[in-house]
C-alpha cells in the first residue's frame, strides 16, 4: 500500500554537522490505511548514496519519533533521502514515496510545499519571486537558460546549497512582508485558519519566533506604525538563518568544506 505524500512532513533542521531529521507522520489523512495492523512497526529509512540509517517511529497505533533523530551515520551533512515504511514480521505493508530533503529547502520532501519552482525566459534577470493575490502558491521563477545550464552540471538550482542559501532568506522576508504588511492579514487568524499557502508560511515562520505572532495592522489606518511587524519579520528571518547557519555554511562551501 502507498502512504500518500500528505501523511509525511519532513525537513532537515541543522545546517552544521550531521543533519537532524524533523519528521511528522500522520496516517489519519489516508482512509485506505485505516485497517493497518496496530502493532506494525513504523520506520523512517534515511539514505544518501550508499549510507543508510533506520529510525524507529513506534507502531501504527502510537507513532512517535525516536529521541535522537540526528543522521550522523549518513555520508552527507546536507542531504538525506527518506522513505517511510510500515513493516510487520518482515512483510512490507505500506511505503511512502522517496523524498529528497536538503537543509535549506524547507518541506522539500514533505506534503506541505510552501513555494513552487517555475522556469521561464527572464531575459537577463536570473530569478524573481511571484506572489499572487489569490490562493495560488508563490512561485520562485528561475531563468530557463540559467536553470538548464545548472542542470547540465547535474545540480538543479533549487538543490544548489549556495544559491538557495542566498535566495531563501530574501524569499522568506518578501513573502512575510507581503502577507502582513501589504495584504495586512491577521497572523493569528491565518495560523488557526484553513490550509492555505499563507497559513503554511505563518506556521513555518512561527517556529522561529517561539510561536509568537505579530498583532495585525488595522486595514483602514494608512498611518499606523508598522515597525513591530517589520521587527518581527526581521527577527524571524534572522532566526531562520541562524538555525540553519546559512552564512557559516556559505563560507564552508566556498572553502571546500561540507
Amino acid at each position, binding site marked *: 500500500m502507498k502512504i500518500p505524500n500528505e501523511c509525511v512532513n519532513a525537513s532537515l533542521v541543522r545546517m552544521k554537522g550531521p543533519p537532524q531529521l524533523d519528521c511528522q507522520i500522520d496516517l489519519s489523512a489516508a482512509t485506505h490505511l485505516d485497517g493497518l495492523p496496530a502493532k506494525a512497526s513504523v520506520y523512517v529509512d534515511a539514505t544518501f548514496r*550508499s549510507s543508510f540509517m533506520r529510525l524507529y517511529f513506534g507502531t501504527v497505533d502510537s507513532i512517535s519519533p525516536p529521541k535522537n533523530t540526528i543522521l550522523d551515520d549518513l*555520508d552527507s*551533512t546536507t542531504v538525506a533521502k527518506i522513505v517511510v515504511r510500515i513493516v510487520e514480521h518482515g512483510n512490507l505493508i505500506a511505503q511512502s514515496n522517496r523524498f529528497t530533503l*536538503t537543509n535549506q529547502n524547507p518541506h522539500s520532501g514533505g506534503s506541505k510545499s510552501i513555494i513552487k519552482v517555475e522556469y521561464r525566459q527572464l531575459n537577463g534577470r536570473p530569478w524573481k519571486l511571484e506572489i499572487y493575490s489569490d490562493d495560488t502558491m508563490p512561485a520562485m521563477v528561475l531563468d530557463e537558460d540559467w536553470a538548464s545550464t545548472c542542470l547540465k552540471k547535474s545540480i538543479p538550482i533549487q538543490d544548489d*546549497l549556495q544559491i538557495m542559501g542566498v535566495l531563501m532568506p530574501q524569499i522568506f522576508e518578501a513573502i512575510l512582508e507581503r502577507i502582513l504588511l501589504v495584504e495586512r492579514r491577521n497572523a493569528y487568524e491565518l495560523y488557526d485558519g484553513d490550509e492555505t499557502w499563507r497559513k503554511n508560511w505563518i506556521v513555518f515562520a512561527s517556529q522561529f519566533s517561539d510561536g509568537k505572532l505579530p498583532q495585525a495592522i488595522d486595514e483602514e489606518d494608512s498611518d499606523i506604525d508598522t515597525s513591530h511587524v517589520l521587527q518581527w519579520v526581521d527577527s524571524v528571518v534572522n532566526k531562520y538563518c541562524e538555525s540553519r547557519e546559512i552564512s557559516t555554511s556559505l563560507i564552508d562551501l566556498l572553502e571546500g568544506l561540507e
Partner: protein
Amino acid sequence: MKFSRILNDEGVNKFRAFLDDGAVTGEPVPTELLTKQETSQIFSKPLDLDQNIVFCSKLELGRYLDNAFEKADLRRQNVIRNRNLWASIVLHWFDQFCPIGSDGKRAVSKVSYSPEKYQKYIPQEVTEYGSKNLHYRHLALTPYRIFERNKLSQNEGRCILAGPIHIFGRDIEAVSGRAEVFSNSQLIEAIHILYWDETKGKLRPGYSTETRAGNIHRLLADVRNQRKKTQDWYSMTARQIVESLPEEFDGWKNRSR
C-alpha cells in the same frame, strides 16, 4: 612508517601522468610524490601505513585501513570524501594495486568515457544535490567501506572482499553499486550463508555463474527487486532472508545447512 603527507592536486595530476605513461611500461612507482613539498600536503592525522605489508585480500586491506583510521581517531565521514587521500593510498601500495605482469608491464585500468579515466586508482568526484562525494569504483575506498559497514558482523563482508586487491570484480560492483545491498548487513550475511564454504574458506564454485540457478547476480538483481515489493529485508535476519528465497536457491540453501 608514518603516512603523514598526502598528494595535493598537483601531486594527483603527476600521479595521473604516471598512469598515462610510465605505469604501463613498468617504470618505478613515483612514491616521492607523497613526500615532495610541491606535490604533497600535510595530512591532518598521521596514519600508520606500513609500505611493506602485503595484502592477500580486499578483506585484509579493508580491515587494515579501518584499523589505521581508528587509531588516528578518524571516522568514516572524515575520510570518505577525500579524493587525494584515496589516490595517495593507492600510490603508496601501487605495486599491489597494479602489479607488474610476467611481461614486465602493468595492466592499468582505464575508463575513457568517465571524467576520471583512472577511477580505480584516483576516485572520481561526484556531486549530488550540492554534496561532494567519491564514486564507489575505487580499489581502496570500496573495500574499506564494505569492511567498515560489516565489521561488527561475524563474516566482516569476507564473501564480497575475498579476492586480491587489484581486482574489482562483478561481485563487488554488484554490491557497492547498489545502495540497498551495500547498506544491508543482514543481506551481506545472507550472501555469506549461501555462497561461502566455511570448511574451505572460500566462495563455493559457480556462485556467480549466470547460467546457474540461484546465483548471486539473480539474488541481488531480479529476486531482490521482486521481493522488496512485499518484504522488508532490513528488518529480517540473514537466516530469514535465506529461508524466504524461492526454490531456485534450494541447492545453495541445502549446502549451507
